[in-house]
């Protein structure tokens, strides 16, 4: 690689503190490990995103395609200051969230992809990335938009977000902001997790990011739709 030219193409990077992993006890009693991954994990994560690319239901296709591009861009140094958190149950990848820093004061929330449904995985992971932006990176606010009605309900209504002028990086609906104050006001109600993650759980999570089969992923995100004529 011509690193001389590459140096021009790579964005500068802001220092970001590590996100300490946490474990969330789910309604099933199962343990969701939420942790930060670095660039090396991206090829693996893309395997889980790929099956969503042509699923129009709940805008999985739009979320999937954009998340795919954002992760790939981060992996190959074309997106600036992105971070990615994942959720795993017994090693199995059940969700991905990502955000990009815009300035030391403002983060831009990008996407939330839940592969397992009905367990509030998306809600837990969204809360985790807000936790990282506000509590660990020290941002004053996070800009948020929604592409699906589920996203709208989860983030806009649950967090009482403040409307902002201008555009969100994704170029869609009017952005809203989760301010530091709103975050702390809603934290007790919405942000779960315990630290440190017990060693054995952490080992299982770190040993391998297990990706469900394409068939399984499709069944999960389509709500296991059973055929009408049985």
């Amino acid at each position, binding site marked *: 690689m011509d690193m001389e030219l590459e140096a021009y193409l790579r964005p500068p990077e802001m220092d970001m503190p590590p996100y300490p992993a946490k474990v*969330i006890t789910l309604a*099933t*009693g199962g343990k969701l490990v939420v942790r930060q991954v670095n660039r090396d994990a991206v090829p693996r994560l893309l395997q889980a995103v790929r099956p969503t690319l042509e699923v129009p239901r709940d805008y999985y296709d739009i979320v999937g395609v954009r998340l795919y591009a954002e992760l790939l861009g981060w992996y190959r140094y074309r997106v600036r200051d992105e971070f990615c958190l994942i959720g795993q149950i017994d090693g199995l990848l059940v969700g991905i969230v990502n955000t990009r820093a815009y300035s030391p004061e403002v983060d831009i929330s990008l996407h939330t992809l839940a592969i397992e449904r009905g367990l509030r995985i998306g809600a837990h992971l969204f809360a985790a990335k807000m936790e990282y932006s506000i509590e660990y990176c020290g941002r004053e606010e996070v800009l948020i938009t929604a592409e699906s009605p589920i996203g709208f309900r989860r983030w806009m209504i649950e967090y009482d977000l403040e409307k902002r002028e201008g555009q969100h990086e994704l170029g869609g609906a009017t952005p809203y902001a989760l301010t530091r104050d709103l975050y702390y006001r809603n934290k007790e109600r919405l942000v779960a997790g315990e630290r440190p993650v017990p060693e054995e759980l952490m080992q299982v999570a770190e040993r391998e990011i297990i990706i469900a089969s394409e068939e399984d992923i499709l069944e999960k995100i389509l709500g296991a739709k059973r055929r009408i004529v049985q």
Partner: protein
Amino acid sequence: MRPVVVAGAGMIPFERRDEDTLVDMMAVASLKAMDDAGLGDRAVDAVYVGNMASGLFNHQVSVASALVDRLSLMPAAADRIENGPASGGSAMKNGFLAVASGYADVVLVVGGEKMREVIGPKATDIVAAMTHPQAEYIYGVTLPALAGLFTRLYMEKYGVTREHLTMVAIKNQENGLLNPYAHIRMKITMEGVLKHPQAHINSPVVADPLHLYDCCPVSDGSAAVLLTTEEIAKDLKKPIVTIDGVGQATDTHTVHERSDPTELKAVIESSKKAFSMANAKPKDVDVAELHDAFTVLEIAESEQAGFFPLGEGAKALERGDTRIGGKLPINPSGGLKARGHPVGATGVAQIVELTWQLRGEAGERQVKKAKTGFSLNFGGFGNNVLAFVMRRKS
């Protein structure tokens, strides 16, 4: 009155069904009931469709006329019956009366609702349209809110705890795992939805003291039965299951006007009437399908329908009496909590489940030696309730 036989029963899995229209869902459930009965091409005389709000959810009305056309059942009589969440039960009652009275020999009863066409808060608003327009609706009251007002009083009066409520949810979601037609097929734990210090994030408040896992899901779905006379049914291959008792009663529109709001008078009266018509007693019942739109209702109904003394429903639950294998299994189907609650479909789905249970066709969730079944379909917040007693004829 002539005895009324449930000759055929069928339903489609309840869940979110974006791709299917309401009328198509009802047509498929109907075909299943018709095929199950095995009456061949025999004409259906009348069709009763239980549906609460197709006009609001789906912008379609006159769905009974649409259904008979879709199924080519003309010139059968066809009516849509709207009675809130008891629409299915009311359609069942009308079908029952048609056969019992001699007005019709073969009757199709279908319940169906497609609620997921609108997003959650809109569905909540449509369902809330059954409340009193001036005395309740304007305040933002929802059905879970009315249930919340009731639950607080019930807990205080009878010592019911949130643990009891969660036990209902756990039991019914376990049963739902055994039911291929159930919307929610997920085992939940006491730790995950109640005991863990952060469980309130998994199971947030909907209408305090009721949390997410105390409430039934919003579902799409349909269920159907074919009713006929003993004479016609005697040559059919299936075991004979009859509807022997039907009771219906009403209570005040608003919850606040009841002198004792913990007393569900329409549950008490409708159950008494159904038992009396069937010449049966609560202790004769082997399996019950109750209207657990909210966990507290399963406990309250199990008492007020006559199965347990007041205040004893939660104890029976603790003892495991209401589990499959217990003294009186309640909601082996998973109930509204796990099977789901497409409002107009529920009253019919309960009869479908009892038919399968009484015939011995309920698979993994079969209640052993079930001979007598009971169902309760609760409309409004208890202002219009239907009860049914069914038996298997040996």
